[in-house]
């Protein structure tokens, strides 16, 4: 039972990758990639969790109260921002592909020309 959050992270990664591999639509592909990336949030936050601990914010609670790990939470924050930026960039590329090729099916897009 105590490994359930890790199993969830692995599951998200696998489902996301499956979506990327089988995708027939670029927007679907980009969203699948985001699903795969969200596994890293679950993994990071699960690693930093401590039983019966509060959030690492010492406003109104005494110093020394058992708190979860702040470093992995800061890393997750970075992770989310990167995810959003990459999502936007890839969607912009998808728009560009649609303008140029008139399709969003990765299998119908001809090989990249220089």
């Amino acid at each position, binding site marked *: 039972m105590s490994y359930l959050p890790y*199993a969830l992270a692995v599951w998200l990664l696998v489902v996301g990758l499956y979506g990327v591999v089988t995708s027939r639509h670029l927007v679907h592909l980009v969203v699948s990639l985001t699903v795969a990336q969200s596994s890293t949030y679950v993994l990071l936050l699960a690693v930093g969790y401590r039983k019966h601990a509060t959030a690492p914010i010492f406003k109104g609670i005494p110093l020394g109260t058992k708190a979860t790990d702040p470093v992995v939470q800061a890393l997750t924050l970075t992770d989310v921002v990167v995810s959003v930026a990459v999502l936007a960039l890839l969607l912009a590329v998808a728009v560009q592909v649609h303008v140029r090729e008139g399709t969003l099916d990765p299998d119908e897009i001809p090989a990249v020309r220089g």
Partner: protein
Amino acid sequence: MSPRARIPLFLVSLAGLAALLGFGVAGLPAFGDYHGPYGLVLNQVVLGERHTTNVVAAVVFDYRGFDTLGEELMLFAAVAATALILREAREEEARQVLDAVRSEPVRLAGLSAVPVVVLLGLFVVAFGYLTPGGGFQGGTVVALGLLLVYLAAEHRAYRRLTPTAVVDVFEGGGAAAFVGLALGALAGGLAFQENFLPLGKIGALTSGGSIPLLNWATAIEVTAAFLLLFGEFLEEVMVERGR
């Protein structure tokens, strides 16, 4: 490669990945039983060393500030690239499309929520290093509050509210301010990005030294980044509709 051949190949590589992940997860501490040293140390020393009550914010804007600098620049680069790609692909200007929301109650409720959401975002930013929140989170909320103008009214109003020229300046300015603060410490003879302002009273808005300034610089950049992305993608939709 044909789609049919792709699945078996994926399953083969998935088996390898599963083995690797299983091996990795088995080596992790059991859920809830983490004893990593850095987080425990930071939870003990941050209040005394930086006077900020939100340890996560202190990590983001101070202890791992260099990491955040890279993140800021990455966000800036990604948003600039997105704008570049979309603006290049768009040959024609957006036509005047009638997309105004006609329902008066929706307009009223939506538009009156705008100041509330923006204020909530500013609050999340302002107290980000004391209570849960911060520049990244609050900046997103502010940008979404302004996007409500598009959702509840019309695209034209959103465009007038967030002129590209202004948003572009804030987007670059936020990132520049972050770098400038890091260089400012260097100019004062300290290490790059060292916290150089007085730490203030614990729990006060003036606490944390340069953390509040970095926090606001981040908020400005994130707000502008989101507004820019919304604006560019909305413009795309308008051009499509105009065709």
